[in-house]
């Protein structure tokens, strides 16, 4: 009741004083009214990003980002529903409102940004399209794929990148594409194809764990692209984009400042600098400007940790995949991730 009153008051205030610069987002409002956040899942497992564990729970980097966003908006990391979607269904599902946001290893492309009527958040991950081939073929780069069969996931940017690459290099080949990651994986492992075009991090994850003998597979040197991966949202709700961007920013800033899920309360009690104080809501400003609680970032970090923790848990050293952070490190550690400035 109180919530509704305040919401009403805010709405009334914005009518009277439209110059007030509080980000009001219809999507955020809708999520609050509903009490749950609707995120995208996968039809099966996309290892490291969206996967189903033995207890039938969703986990992965993208799922953790969804949980972070849920905590920021609703204060509870579990107040979300993961809607299983195939690659082909993700944009229609977003447009129809089946999900609020797509956080699903989705590359930022011009077509999606314009014709599909989407808008993208800050990129939170960078990965290039590469090929993984069976080791017994004895090849190290794509020129060895002459006459070979390539598997790829249907409806993805990788599908077009790979097709474009072969068109440029004039390599004779056959292409087979599948609707889900699981089908693609089992087809490649069954030797339906000589090589498998995929997203670099995903290939590395597969090679590290999904395959009994990692040495039996090589990731070819050629890098087709480096794609910025970002969350996709419906156009026309700038407030929601702001919210998502600042959730990602807060995770990065927390890592920069060394705030982890373990020490967040301690840091909040004795903030080492004004930036941390503002981030954790000790000083006001973080919440009000986004139309949320001041302590959202603190709760979020306590629930899911900073970006580094999320990475390590799902892809890095605390995961079975043990991927190097590479490009996906903070700029100060040789990566390309950086946060906008929290003033």
């Amino acid at each position, binding site marked *: 009741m109180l919530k509704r009153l305040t919401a009403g008051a805010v709405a009334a205030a914005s009518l009277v004083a439209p110059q007030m610069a509080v980000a009001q987002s219809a999507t955020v409002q809708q999520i609050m009214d509903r009490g749950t956040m609707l995120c995208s899942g996968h039809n099966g497992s996309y290892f490291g990003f969206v996967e189903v564990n033995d207890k039938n729970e969703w986990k992965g980097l993208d799922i953790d980002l969804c949980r972070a966003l849920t905590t920021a908006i609703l204060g509870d990391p579990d107040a979300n529903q993961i809607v299983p979607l195939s690659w082909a269904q*993700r*944009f229609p599902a977003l447009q129809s409102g089946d999900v609020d946001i797509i956080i699903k290893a989705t590359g930022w492309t011009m077509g999606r940004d314009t014709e599909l009527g989407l808008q993208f958040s800050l990129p939170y991950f960078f990965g290039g399209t590469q090929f993984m081939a069976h080791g017994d073929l004895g090849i190290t780069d794509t020129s060895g794929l002459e*006459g*070979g069969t390539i598997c790829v996931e249907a*409806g993805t940017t990788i599908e077009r990148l790979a*097709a*474009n690459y072969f*068109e440029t290099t004039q390599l004779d080949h*056959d292409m087979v594409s599948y609707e889900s990651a699981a089908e693609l994986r089992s087809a490649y492992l069954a030797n339906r194809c000589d090589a498998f075009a995929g997203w670099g991090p995903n290939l590395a994850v597969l090679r590290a764990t999904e395959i009994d003998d990692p040495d039996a597979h090589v990731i070819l040197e050629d890098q087709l692209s480096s794609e910025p991966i970002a969350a996709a949202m419906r156009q026309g709700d700038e407030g929601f984009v702001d919210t998502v961007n600042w959730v990602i920013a807060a995770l990065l800033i927390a890592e920069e400042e060394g705030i982890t899920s373990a020490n967040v309360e301690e840091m909040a009690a004795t903030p080492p600098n004004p930036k941390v104080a503002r981030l954790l809501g000790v000083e006001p400003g973080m919440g009000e400007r986004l139309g949320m609680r001041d302590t959202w970032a603190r709760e979020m970090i306590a629930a899911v940790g900073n970006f580094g923790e999320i990475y390590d848990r799902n892809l890095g050293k605390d995961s079975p995949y043990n991927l190097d952070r590479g490009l996906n490190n903070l700029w100060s550690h040789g990566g390309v991730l950086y946060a906008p400035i929290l003033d």
Partner: protein
Amino acid sequence: MATAEELRAKAKQRRLIIQSAIITITVLVVWGAVSNAQYNLTRLNMTSGFAFLDRGTGWDYSFSLVERSINDRYSYTLFVGLLNTLFVGFICIITTTIFGFLIGTMRDARHPAVAFAANVYVQIFRNIPLILQAIFLYAVLIHMGGPRQAMSFADIAYLSGRGLMLPGLNVSPTMAVSLLLLSLAIGVGLIGSKKTKLWRGIGIWVGASVVLAVLAALVTRPEGEGVMSIPALQGLRFTGGVSVPIELLAMIISITLYGSAYIAEIVRGGLKQVPKGLVEAGQALGLNHMSIWSRIKVPMALRSIIPPLGNQWIFMMKATTIGIAVGFSDLFYITVNSISQSGQTLELILILMLTFLAINYSIAIFTNWLNARLALKEH
């Protein structure tokens, strides 16, 4: 007490009200849907219209009967999908009909072991969902290993996890498609004409098609190559011959296994309805089993077999949509992929639906024609 006149008037009025209500509601629902779609498209800033059909796709897919490249326009790519659907559909219609008649006849046999074996077949393949059978079979097939581990049949045909490599006539793909179409035209002409007998017509059709194909290969083959092209392992794959991708093979086998179990039941039902007296009359005339089957039982049974058989053929065409589960580029697969690559959901779904309506009406017309042709022969 109302008079009959009044009652009639009242009933008439009620009929009028109900019918106009249906029209009004339909118009309102359609209008509401269209205006909602317009509103949603503007709100979501989505592009609508059919302009995208002229744009290049930029992606590749597993199977095509005709030349293709990633620069093809969407319209052409959808057409290729349609060709693939029709191709698989026709092949399956033919194979299921042949197998269905075979198994249905076995099921009708007096010989207990024959009937039992056919019964086992029908009970296994009819009672498991088609899509499960297709996925299962596909998984088994692709685990057969790469081209280097291919099974060899007398060194002229090979089966591997990539596909079936068969020796073929030395003609270009386009030539092969034109030959197929020509053969189809001859077939329809021969079976359609009332002058030739059905069995003889089929014989002439098959013979003429083979002769034509060999002639075409003789004339158009590349300099210095034989009439037949035999597959041979070269690098990562087989070259030469006809290659049937494993996806296509999985589709054809699974639809055939499933569909023929259904057709077998239709055929058995039809054969059962043939009066015993007729069969006995045939035996009295000294006809052997084969003649009784082909001259008495089948022609009599066809009249009750054809209508459900036509429905089964339509089902076969619709069943090609499982292609998406095994990575075969049928029309549904191409449409879904076009949707995710171009985002033109409404337009593409509309095209898909209209195409399937057209296919089904054509089959229905063909079945009616076939029924009429066979019925006329009886009298």
